């Protein structure tokens, strides 16, 4: 207000702004600062300021995604990384989920030919639309499946003993990884957004049954348990080949970079996608 006059009453809500704030006024009221921070956090889609536990492992894939987005190509650690443009499309949010590990000795409940993994997706906000997703499994080049080609079957399954798992995809695994001399390679399975929506609208949990069999084997999942003993050798290879179970003595950091990862690509209804599709 200039000249101390005002054509509009303030109603006592907004004090006149001093031309030169006093030192005391320069320091915001802690309560006000808290309110401003809460407002900003809510606009970021967060209910409160996250307080993560120390040393939370960050999946390398997410780091590479960020670095690629920032055009920091020289910092990419995975030489096989490719930006998932077909997944991202209109998405402005990418979330990563590690699978829920069972407590205790899970070797007793795990079938020798199949492994069940599940993901808790309940942390996805309800107003966020999942546009695409993928399940990423690490294949270790250091171990082999054994002689002959093998097939990986991916089923949607509520639990390990699900009598009617739904097949999502089957893929032939060859022993050689083209273009990669050593190290590891991520097998990525595209998941339809409907699956995520159902899981999100239900229990928030999404389970998968993984099965690796020699290509000449024709047993179905419900038959496979009876022939588990004969497949022990293959299964031992599988455990090392597809990193779905933690090795004995493996540290948290190493395991965090190898364990299955479910990645969702979504949009919260605000703002631009991560990838711009406008004119250059």
């Amino acid at each position, binding site marked *: 207000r200039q000249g101390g006059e005002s054509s509009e009453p303030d109603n006592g809500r907004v004090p006149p702004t001093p031309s030169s704030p006093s030192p005391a006024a320069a320091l915001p009221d802690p309560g006000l600062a808290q309110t401003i921070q809460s407002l900003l956090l809510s606009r970021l889609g967060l209910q409160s300021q996250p307080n993560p536990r120390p040393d939370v492992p960050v999946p390398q894939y997410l780091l590479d995604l960020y670095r690629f987005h920032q055009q920091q190509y020289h910092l990419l650690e995975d030489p096989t990384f490719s930006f998932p443009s077909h997944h991202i499309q209109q998405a402005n949010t990418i979330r990563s989920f590690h699978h829920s590990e069972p407590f205790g000795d899970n070797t007793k409940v795990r079938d020798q030919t199949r492994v069940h993994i599940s993901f808790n997706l309940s942390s996805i906000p309800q107003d966020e639309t999942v546009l695409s997703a993928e399940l990423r499994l690490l294949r270790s080049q250091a171990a082999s499946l054994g002689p002959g080609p093998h097939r990986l079957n991916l089923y949607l399954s509520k639990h390990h003993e699900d009598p009617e798992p739904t097949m999502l995809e089957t893929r032939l695994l060859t022993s050689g990884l083209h273009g990669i001399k050593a190290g590891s390679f991520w097998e990525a399975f595209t998941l339809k957004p409907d699956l995520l929506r159902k899981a999100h609208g239900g229990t928030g949990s999404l389970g998968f049954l993984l099965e690796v069999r020699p290509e000449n084997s024709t047993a179905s999942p419900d038959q496979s348990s009876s022939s588990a003993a004969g497949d022990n050798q293959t299964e031992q290879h599988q455990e090392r080949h597809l990193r779905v179970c933690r090795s004995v003595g493996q540290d948290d950091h190493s395991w965090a970079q190898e364990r299955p990862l479910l990645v969702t690509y979504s949009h919260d209804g605000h703002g631009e996608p*991560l990838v711009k599709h406008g004119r250059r």
Partner: protein
Amino acid sequence: TSGNSKWIKARKGSNMKTKRSGKGHNRDQGWGKTRKVGYSMKSWGDDKGEVSWSDRGRVKRNGSPAKLKRLSRGRCRRHPLHVDFRDVGWHKWIIAPSGYDAFFCLGECRYPLADHMNASSHAVVQTMVNSVNGAVPRACCVPTSLSPIALLYLDNHDRVVLKNYQDMVVESCGC
């Protein structure tokens, strides 16, 4: 009419074209064919040259260069502001970046508001009213164009999220 100061330059042959938003919209601001008073951006300088406000049309013929420079610098423009997430205590959950250039807008919106000042019609009217009635405040210097940044952070469940947050960086300012 043209001024007699050496600081006042005349430029001919370009039209006044100004975008409302977007990068570089004011990097090539020509002066109108019939206008003979204006300042080049380089004369007055600013951060990266994104926002530079001409005092075209407002300059008194006998104004001193120092005064004119002070007036120009007080005009609405973009200023550098780097936000370090450590300073605001967010470094525990924001993985990357550690900070970013947010910028801020500051300066006066005085009469007259030239086209390249990104002034809204409302700001022009408000400024005009202010010139005749001091009880009405001047228009505010605000961001007219904002851009997003990507944040890699941990959510409330310790899960890593990469998100594009809109309106985090000031691209240009205006009245």
